[in-house]
């Protein structure tokens, strides 16, 4: 059995993204590098053969998903309930957290001009954000950051897929905390 066949079978059987490490568990002969190479092989084959699905990267994981152009056909079927679209309030807080993490509640409220308590609870319940630590200062406030699930929900391979702040229409003068962005080499685009 070739590595890409084993990886294909495993990706095919899973309903959630799997990391290379998880995929490698399918066989002793596999390691993460081989898995990643296998994924590349599969991607190229699916592309060439014009398969209706492709391997996409979501966070650290990979998942077989249909290509977007098939959505209109599939939407004709009764589908399982999918995560709801986020409310503007939730999106606003999430946007701030995504770009400023780790960040505390007070700072989020300062930017939004409104209370964020209940929104934060919702985002935590949906596992889109989590507590990543505690800040300095009075009461050592909880600091929030985004989760793997956040990346999955928005179809992002990593936070680097978000445009850098200065490329947004309204760029901010002050520099953003984004050391993380430079640290890792960009992963191959997920094509999402």
């Amino acid at each position, binding site marked *: 059995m070739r590595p890409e066949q084993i990886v294909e079978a495993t990706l095919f059987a899973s*309903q959630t993204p799997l990391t290379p490490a*998880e995929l490698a568990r399918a066989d002793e002969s596999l390691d993460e590098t081989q898995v990643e190479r296998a994924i590349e092989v599969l991607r190229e084959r699916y592309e060439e053969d014009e398969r209706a699905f492709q391997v996409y990267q979501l966070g650290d994981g990979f998942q077989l998903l*249909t290509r977007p152009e098939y959505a209109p056909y599939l939407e004709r079927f009764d589908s399982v309930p999918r995560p709801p679209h986020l409310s503007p309030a939730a999106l606003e807080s999430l946007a701030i957290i995504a*770009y400023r993490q780790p960040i505390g509640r007070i700072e989020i409220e300062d930017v939004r001009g409104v209370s964020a308590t209940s929104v934060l609870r919702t985002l935590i319940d949906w596992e889109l954000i989590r507590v990543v630590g505690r800040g300095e200062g009075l009461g050592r406030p909880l600091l929030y950051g985004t989760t793997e699930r956040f990346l999955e929900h928005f179809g992002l391979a990593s936070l680097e897929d978000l445009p850098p702040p200065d490329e947004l229409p309204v760029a901010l003068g002050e520099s953003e905390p984004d050391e993380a962005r430079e640290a890792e080499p960009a992963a191959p685009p997920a094509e999402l």
Partner: protein
Amino acid sequence: MISGSTKPQAGSPIAIGGESFVVELDRFQGPLDLLLHLIRSQDIDILDIPIAHITGQFLRAIEEGLDRMPLERAGEFLEMSATLVRIKAQMLLPRPERYEWEEDPRAELVRRLLEYEHFQDVVHVLQTAEAQRGRHMAKGYIEDRPPPVISRPQLEVSLRDLLEAAARIPDPVPVAQVRPPSATVTVGEKVSLLRRLIGKAKRVALERLFKPWGTRAHAVAALLAALELARQQVIRIEQTKPFSPIWLFSLATGSDRSGSADTGADGPELESSRVGSGIEENGPRAAGAEELS
């Protein structure tokens, strides 16, 4: 919402002055959102906001919607109007009294507006990403046809599980507990209890004087004690509406202990940080290989 008839589209010009000024307050995420809308929809240079003009519009926009708003939200809009009015006043100060190195009173507001606008761009990015992600379907997207009841997998729940859950149900609040007749209760006891409690807190719920015992006799004694101390002007009794809690306020002078209800908001969030991916959330369905992990 100020007026339900016309829904202004984002970016549509707002008629200035007169009756046609229609803004749905509910539509805005908060004061910054509203302010930004006023500025954008009138092609105002954000770096040179005509403060008097915008303040007037802002106040009029929130005027009507305010009392229909929950207190917390109303407070957020009011805070912004206070800021606007303060800036307006500062702008009116005669020039000579302001030094050159002094910051434009509008600077902080402009910074906040720009920052808020920036994150609106991010919101747009996220919305686009979310919509795109929604066009990729995973295996299992097309729903199971509901299987006939007979073929359903057996739930793995035993009677013992059920009984254990039942044992965890708290008892209903007893209507009246049977007490040995010897346990008499006197108004005097309640008076000294109330005096002790009111010494420590500025206000005490009447309930606290009898809830632990749960009998009618205690409730009556507590009420009589409260009335007695009210007569002696030690306390004041307050109830906001029928059947709401009865509060006993100390009339002794002391530090103001206005509540701070919102402070501990960060606490319980940790606990709710995992919401089950289990059956409760998603309902039953044939498990695929979803548990791969």
